[in-house]
């Protein structure tokens, strides 16, 4: 029953989203992105960002947006 690494990352990101519906979607997305940024290893973030960029079908809406936000933060210089 073991999930692949990517499957596991998707489950984890979706779970963070499911547990953090804040007042607005923008706040939720910000929270999820910050949480992942603060607690996940570089390689995990990279893998999930790559997946989201390819469409990220299995990510829920908020998680997708959060991962895309993370992607922007990591690609902009100085972060």
């Amino acid at each position, binding site marked *: *029953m*073991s999930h692949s690494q990517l499957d596991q990352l998707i489950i984890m990101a979706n*779970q963070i989203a499911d*547990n953090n519906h804040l007042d607005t979607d923008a706040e939720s997305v910000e929270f999820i992105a910050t949480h992942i940024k603060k*607690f996940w290893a570089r*390689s995990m973030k990279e893998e999930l960002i790559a997946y989201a960029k390819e469409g990220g079908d299995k990510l829920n809406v908020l998680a997708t947006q959060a991962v895309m936000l993370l992607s922007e933060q990591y690609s902009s210089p100085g972060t």
Partner: protein
Amino acid sequence: MLQHYDPKQKGATQQNPEHMDFNKDYGTPQSLSENLITLQVDGVEITVTEGTSVLRAAALADINIPKLCASDNLEAFGSCRLCAVQIEGRRGFPASCTTPVEAGMKVTTQNEKIGKLRRNIMELYISDHPLDCLTCPSNGDCELQDVAGAVGLREVRYGFDGHNHLDAEKDKSNPYFTFDPSKCIVCSRCVRACEEVQGTFALTVDGRGFASKIVAGQDDSFLDSDCVSCGACVQACPTSTLMENNVIEMGQPEHSIVTTCAYCGVGCSFKAEMKGDQVVRMVPYKGGEANQGHSCVKGRFAFGYATHKDRIKTPMIRDNIDEQWREVSWEDAIGFAAKRLKEVQAKYGRESVGGITSSRCTNEETYLVQKLIRAAFGNNNTDTCARVCHSPTGYGLKTTLGESAGTQTFDSIRHTDTMLVIGANPTDAHPVFASMMRRRLREGAQLIVADPRKIDLLKTPHLKDAIHLPLRPGTNVALVNSLAHTIMSEGLEDKAFIASRCDDKAFLKWQAFIREERNSPEAMQSITGVDAGDVRRAARVYANAGNGAIFYGLGVTEHSQGSTMVMGIANLALATGNIGREGVGVNPLRGQNNVQGSCDMGSFPHELPGYQHVADDEARGRFEAAWGVKLDDEPGLRIPNMFDAALAGSFKALYVQGEDIAQSDPNTQHVEAALKALDCVIVQDIFLNETAKFAHVLLPGSTFLEKNGTFTNAERRINRVRKVMPPLAGKEDWEVTVALSNALGYEMNYSHPSEIMDEIASLTPSFSGVSYDRLEELGSIQWPCNEQHPEGMPIMHVEDFPIGKGNLAITEYVATDERATRRFPLLLTTGRILSQYNVGAQTRRTENQTWHDEDVLEIHPHDAEERGVNQGDWLGISSRAGQTVLRAVISQRMQPGVVYTTFHHPGSGANVITTDSSDWATNCPEYKVTAVQVEKVTQPSEWQKNFEDFNKKQQDYLKKGRRHRSEEVSR
């Protein structure tokens, strides 16, 4: 529980603190009154607190009145009459133990009449006592003998031929001590210790007069009775009636060293009583502030593993796990490990290696392992077993209260009016603290237990009121929200506390959320399965408690919403103002001895020591300057992430110190596959544990008896661990890490763990005032210890929170994906029992096996009947992760639909069934909820058969490796 002198306590200064000796018995407990009374004893003027006994007052002035039935950890009893004195203006000879001091009292402790009276009493005792003093095990440590000497007993006029008890039979049923009633003087100290200190009430005095005798249970053997083998009775016995078998076999110890127990998070202080470098017995130390002179069966008796034949005493290496081990020198083993690590990093990159620090090792050792990983490996792939137990505590408490730790001292429970115990089983997992809880419950405190199981704390003798909220596994957040809803909707909150101590905006938002009808007990009842009326009643009791304290364990954290639940608990305490003073607070009960410490020491991949985030440039900069290397500013992999990465092929080498991930972590088959996928596994442990069977390098570890260092317990108390014997394999664990680091080219130079602590203090603001000298001076220190709090901080958040105001967090209930289905209709929850500890590597190699030599599956009679299951049947337990087979125990402790097991024996495969489901915030595994099916079977599971084969093969490799070495040596 033992009362003891506390130098910080008001009013105690008059008791001459310089002369307070934790090795002396002052006869009766300390009085906590603040009023002072002056009296004269034998013409000496003494000032003591009101309520102190004459016996204790005299002892404080070093006037030592003979006594037998009195001891300063027990209430005065007044039965032996040896402590009789004369008091001016009073008739007769009152017992000084039961006579409280009065102002102006004039006491005479010695004169001819008193002397004669005492001799007469002793004469009667000795007339029914064997005169085998020279060959008696307590020779050299016998209070009866001492008192006979002190009173000058010279003859026994009654002779020895009359009726006596000299032929009474010994009870040797307990593996650790012998009960020899022929030597009993029926002073009741054992009975009272069992009641007052331990709170079990297993012993009693049966019969009257000459026929009086001490019995366990209903005249059962000690082993068959309710006795939990804590040893308080053995310690209390003034004769050789209850005696450690070790003392019977080895004789009296000749020196002792105070150190800290390496079992649970209570962190008991013990005197290791020694003969040369052999431990004769462990005696709980009265000066230890966590345990105050009490212990459990593990700490007191289960230390034999340290000298067990299975100990690994020589470093070993092998190229792959399908070949035998080769014993080599330390230098060769370290060189081999370093070479392998370098090769892996050269081939797969800097981030392809990582390590796991040990929550059983010392702070200093843990600090060094994470330093090795960050500085020498050059990445942040460090984690610790707290990942799988209390990581949600770190996250949840930091978010709400601003600090990742419990808020109280254990002793604070003396002031608690209501205790709310959630997902914890203290009588089994934190037994010494459970005794303190039970004492407070006997004094009338109320108890609320939220747990799927009817835990033993609910069966406390003389328990007054108790409410059990038997919730369904996985519904903690729903329950805590409905408790908070009741408090807020019935106006039970502490408005003044909220106004002054909590963040306004956060509170208003939370209040609006929690008051929503969907969070009411009535609405949540269908989810939690707990009667709404009971929830409301519990909320009222906690909120109106006066002092309400919450204690929680892994039943809170090991869930998909573990972190949310911790925040929900903090919300309850904040809303009711139950924080920042004695008797209240949020108290996580930590599993392993140094889980708190391993977290403090920067074991987590995202945090440097002292919970400083790796992305914090200022903090990281200080570490970079001190360590002389550039550090990664991105978090590393957590333990479960390491396994996933190993299977994905990007993670290739692992250094594990004192942790058995192959047994303790969930989804065993996944863990085993991950370990097999690694090119290099370096295990540092005292035994060939399950993880070591997958290793290429096995470095011998040292037990807590073999090294210097510190442990930090669940109250943030830093206690010294002191070396009482040399390390069996020649190196303390920190020395091994130093050697590995040096071999990798990152220089480490320490000559003693105190130097490591100095480095920790220089880099960790909450530890800046900690040093070994300071620990010697103060005994122990509760962090934070710095300029503002030079003696540490027993109670936290008194004035404010580290984040300023308390932050009430929104705690939306989200059901776990792990739920009962048609295929898996039952919920499995796992836990531990009293006699075994964690993976059992230590306790399975002691006589504690007597109580629990296999893990069983507890199942409710209803579920058993439905499946035709009888007591003792073999049951196959399947989940989506795997299958294992255990023996059935039919038990009403479980609610229908819930089954329970422990994970102390590797072959049980409890974690073959647990899944990869985890806490959303921290990846802490959801051990407490696994959907399973249970059916009768006739043979072990496939995994169990494979385990047996693999185990046999690996044991064989170890044996051959050892033989190979001895042949080489003999050549």
